[in-house]
């Protein structure tokens, strides 16, 4: 069969899915050293719903700041502008794909898997004492975004692959490679590149099933790889994969997690998941 060109598939999706203006404004402000917390607050005040969501998140167990945070400026000062940008991306990414027809995929289930992966990445980053744990959250949140491109551009083929995998117990990402000549990880990285998102996100998405191939952001990629496995096993959402993917021993060792960390991650995932679902999907899990 004629295998599709991944760049053509990306061109199709970028016509319907784009990042919101507010993210672009925050990104621009990030690159201006004169931008103050007040300036970021002014940008956010253009989107009252988003500002309210950020205030709610700042007061949630996600951050566990001591005392009540009552203004957006205060929230931005405490959260930090880099983290703020990542949080806004997390909040707006769902809206970028709102036009994908519901009959193609259960979008809530899709995002729940990705949110769970993001939360797991965040917990692993916290355990490793990383500085920007929200960046880790977004890496997990976006890791399967290439599947949305496939569901939108190749719905019949994806439907057949999912059905075949549920009968044969094959891994969906391997079936994608056999059928299309590439998988959702490559497509996702191409889409994020097209959107000019940070290189870290492009690389972690590209190699989340093949972390041993990562040349940059090796720890970040290993974090997404292991978090994908954990979230597939411990939460109910799914981006199409029914089987638990195998793990790269190299990625596991790079993370340096200790015995007992998994049950701790599971407990934290249980606590943070509902907050993250509320923030990203604006609903209870």
């Amino acid at each position, binding site marked *: 069969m004629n295998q599709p060109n991944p760049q053509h598939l990306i061109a199709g999706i970028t016509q319907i899915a784009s990042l919101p203006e507010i993210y672009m404004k925050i990104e621009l402000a990030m690159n201006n050293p004169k931008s103050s917390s007040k300036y970021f607050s002014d940008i956010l005040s253009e989107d009252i719903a988003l500002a309210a969501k950020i205030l709610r998140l700042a007061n949630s167990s996600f951050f566990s700041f001591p005392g009540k945070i009552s203004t957006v400026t205060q929230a931005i000062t405490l959260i930090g502008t880099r983290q703020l940008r990542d949080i806004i991306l997390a909040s707006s990414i769902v809206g970028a794909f709102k036009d994908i027809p519901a009959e193609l995929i259960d979008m809530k289930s899709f995002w729940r898997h990705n949110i769970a992966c993001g939360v797991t990445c965040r917990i692993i980053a916290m355990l490793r004492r990383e500085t920007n744990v929200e960046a880790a959250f977004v890496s997990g949140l976006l890791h399967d975004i290439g599947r949305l491109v496939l569901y939108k551009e190749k719905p019949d083929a994806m439907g057949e692959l999912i059905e075949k995998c549920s009968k044969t117990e094959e891994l969906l990402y391997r079936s994608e490679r056999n059928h299309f000549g590439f998988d959702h990880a490559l497509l996702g990285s191409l889409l994020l590149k097209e959107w000019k998102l940070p290189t870290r996100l492009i690389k972690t998405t590209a190699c989340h099933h093949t972390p041993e191939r990562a040349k940059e952001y090796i720890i970040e990629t290993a974090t997404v790889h292991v978090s994908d*496995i954990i979230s597939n096993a*411990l939460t109910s959402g799914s981006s199409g994969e*029914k*089987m638990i993917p195998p*793990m790269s021993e190299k990625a596991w060792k790079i993370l340096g997690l200790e015995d007992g960390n*998994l*049950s701790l991650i599971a407990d934290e995932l249980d606590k943070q998941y509902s907050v993250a679902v509320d923030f990203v999907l604006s609903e209870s899990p």
Partner: protein
Amino acid sequence: MVLSSDVTDRGGRTILLKAGSELTEKHLKIFKTWGVVQVDVKGKDNSTPLNNIINAHPELEISARLAVKSTFKHTNLKHPFFKELSDLWVQNHIKQRAAEI
């Protein structure tokens, strides 16, 4: 809950709380600040909700143990990580099925 061993900082150099101390919410906040993610506590409670479910519906555990093998067929179940992960999967599976009864 009472500590069964001393809690130290991540480097193991500073004792934050002695064994035998009663744990409070305030202690947990301090541990979090110091990056402590796990402590040992005395005693073990066997009357967990999960054990109660398994005692009432042993068939749920049997079906979960069978299902875990196919769901994890692409993984190395002898690896300590997957051993623990598959156990957690079984526990979740049993709880979900029990909730449907």
